[in-house]
């Protein structure tokens, strides 16, 4: 039942990170379900609950043609990082990064309480970009939240980032795979907006890569 799918590594390890409330879990479910429909064996590890309020969150996706793997990725083993918040990309890279990792990152910061209180400074986006560039093989920064605000719902930054990840061409997914999951799992009044966000993400990455 497995379609002809080539993975750059097996298992291929994706981390989706962000801050609690940014739609991390939703994003990992959609990507996981789309890959699972291709016949791939997907394992997703995540944490949620009270401990995540305002905290850093991560979803670990293991994509394999063969087996079920650990829901936690071993240190240093991330292949693709999708980061819904800039500073969270650094935090993930410090544990799971390696010189060959690819990074897609949203540019909009979510300030930690220590930044709101003035006890800590949040780095400028240019500085952040140069650091992530240094720690990755390739990286792409997108103003996903700003674009999502134009769609009227900042939460859609997660779907824009998924669109961009599919657009980069690393994940073995097509728009039709994403659309099938959206049609099946989302209420009908939300489907079009999510598809629009997905297409926006693909267009944004196409503009950068070109």
């Amino acid at each position, binding site marked *: 039942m497995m379609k002809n799918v080539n993975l750059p590594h097996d298992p291929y390890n994706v981390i989706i990170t962000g801050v609690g409330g940014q739609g991390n879990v939703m994003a990992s479910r959609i990507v996981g379900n789309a890959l699972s429909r291709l016949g791939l064996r997907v394992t997703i590890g995540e944490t949620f*609950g009270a401990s995540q*309020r*305002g905290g850093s969150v991560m979803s670990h996706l293991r994509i394999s043609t063969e087996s079920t793997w650990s*829901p936690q990725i*071993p240190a240093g083993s991330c292949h693709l990082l999708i980061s819904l918040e800039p500073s969270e990309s650094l*935090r993930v890279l410090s544990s799971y990064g390696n010189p060959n990792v690819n990074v897609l990152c949203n540019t909009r910061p979510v300030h930690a309480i220590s930044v709101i*209180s*003035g006890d800590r400074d949040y*780095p400028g986006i240019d500085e952040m970009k140069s650091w992530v560039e240094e720690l990755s093989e390739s990286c792409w920064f997108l103003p996903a939240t700003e674009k999502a605000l134009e769609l009227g719902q900042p939460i859609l930054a997660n779907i824009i980032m998924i669109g961009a990840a599919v657009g980069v061409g690393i994940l073995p997914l097509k728009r039709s795979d994403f659309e099938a999951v959206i049609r099946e799992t989302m209420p009908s009044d939300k489907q079009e907006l999510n598809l629009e966000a997905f297409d926006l993400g693909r267009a944004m990455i196409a503009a950068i890569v070109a």
Partner: protein
Amino acid sequence: MSQILNGIPGSRHLLMGNEAIARGALEAGVSVVAGYPGTPSSEIVETLAKVSSKLNLYVEWSVNEKVAMEVAAAGSFAGLRSMAVMKQNGVNVGSDFLLHLALTGTRGGMVIVHCDDPGALSSANEGESRHFARMLEIPLLEPGDFQEAKNMIKWAFELSETVHNVVMVRSVTRLSHASGPVTLGELPEVEKNAYFNHNGFILDPLEGPVSCLPVPHHHERQQEKMKKAAAEFEVSQFNTYNGPPRPELMVITGSACHLYCKETINLLGLQGRVGLLKLGTTWPLPKQLIRTHLEKTDRFMIVEEVIPFLEENVKIIAAELASEIGPKTFFAKRDGTFPGTNEMNPDLVIAALAEILEIPYEPAPPAYRRRAQDLTQSGAPGRDLTFCAGCPHRASFWTLHNVLQLDGREGFVCGDIGCYSLAVLPTGFSTLKTLHSMGSGVGLASGFGKLGQFGMMQPVIATVGDSTFFHAVLPALINAVHHQSDITIVILDNSGTAMTGFQPHPGLPVDASGNAVPAIDIAAVCEATGATVRIRDPFDIDSTRETLLELLDISGLKVLVLKQKCALSPEKKAGKQFDVSVDEEICLGQNCGCNRLCTRIFKCPGLKWDGEGQVSGIDDVICVGCGVCASICPSGAIRRKEVA
């Protein structure tokens, strides 16, 4: 979700561990399901509640875990398959009933699913519930992946009917809240007829009354059942061995740790050197099976969470057989190979195995890791836990904190279990001074309130949530009223079991499956006990403060119900009440006499501090428009405008 009911048998789906457990229960033909919400277990009951109207299935969110076990046991006594579901501490709550249930035995298959939280990722403890199986002498199963989570639940019902006793199935956060591939089985057509047979001979286990008496008779029978379970476990398909016939070292593990061990053996390329014994039946241990594997080598690594349960039980068998199989070396928790606390992960297993077998392993180039860690230190400010933007608890604790300061008698607040537990931290102005189990805040307050005869003059307040109120506060409340304990109970009523995802509780007019049910009025219950009761909106800071000050001056038991819906509730998410903005002309920033009350003390995530411009601001993406910050700004610089 739809695949839980409609998935085609034989098809493979990506299911959350909890969904796999729910599907397993459906494949077993479960009829009665009861639980109390608790991370990481809640999705099991939620999933079953959603499909309950389409099947002949009764699902309830019980008032607490003990009642959930009792409701499920009633189903079993009437001949139906039944399941009780809870997080780890729920087993503690229900353990008194469970002790007696284990003695009487069951009729229709009965399974208790308990989801432990190693590392306390979403708990106030990392308690182990596996020990209950040994202590109470009942069988224990632990699924080692997602497929097993489904299959094992189904088998647990069969086992329960074979031994006529309740069976425990233990999951953990990294299984319950993780997702993986699961191939579905058939949903059975079951004829369900409930009838409690109680007229038979008093000692007849299937037709007589269900009673613990006489205890010695039942206890003896209970131990016979354990022998029967052990015999089943000797040949169980849930115990598997992968590896060479004579490995250099054998890993013995189970549950989510099984996946970490499998990962390690693969990553280090040790398939030809290291064996992997995965145990799914962990109490009672199948002695012959363990012996067979102990004979294969002399070195063992035991990987488990959190307390060395498997380690101790395997070592007992190794000690009993020592004269026949010779001495064995174990790398596990008791020798310090693995830490005695916190959850496991692949990295701990990789590091331990690499060291024992002297295999060089670096997860990433050391220079890369150092650089990444340095950049994280300087560029990624740590995220302290905080109440959400617009959370009613921030407003409630703001007032509680300020009132205690104004009162000036060194009063304090006893905390309880819910999102508001975070008020031990700066996000709740460090207002909570005790934090234990569900309902304990009021019990402790009841005790503190009686210490006046020893000279204690400090005002005593307890805060509890609405779901917690019904779960375990009622006995403590009645105790406090009856003994005239001089305390104030603040009920933070946000209209649902918010922390675990808005499951309904007895205070709401709807049940788990969405049916209309009578709601029990918290304020009326408190009034009926004789307490002085007030109801306020915590977003109305002034009125809440005046009321609390008034209550602190009244003697006896006082209750303040602070009603405001959770900021994440569907109603609140539908739209903002206020547009909030900062008038930069009026904001004085650091120069404000308030010392930046908004961003330095109140610290709602919806606020911003512009260090360069020296003004506060609103983050429009995060602000949910509760408008409370406008009430706390002394300069009137924060403006709120009702959204049309």
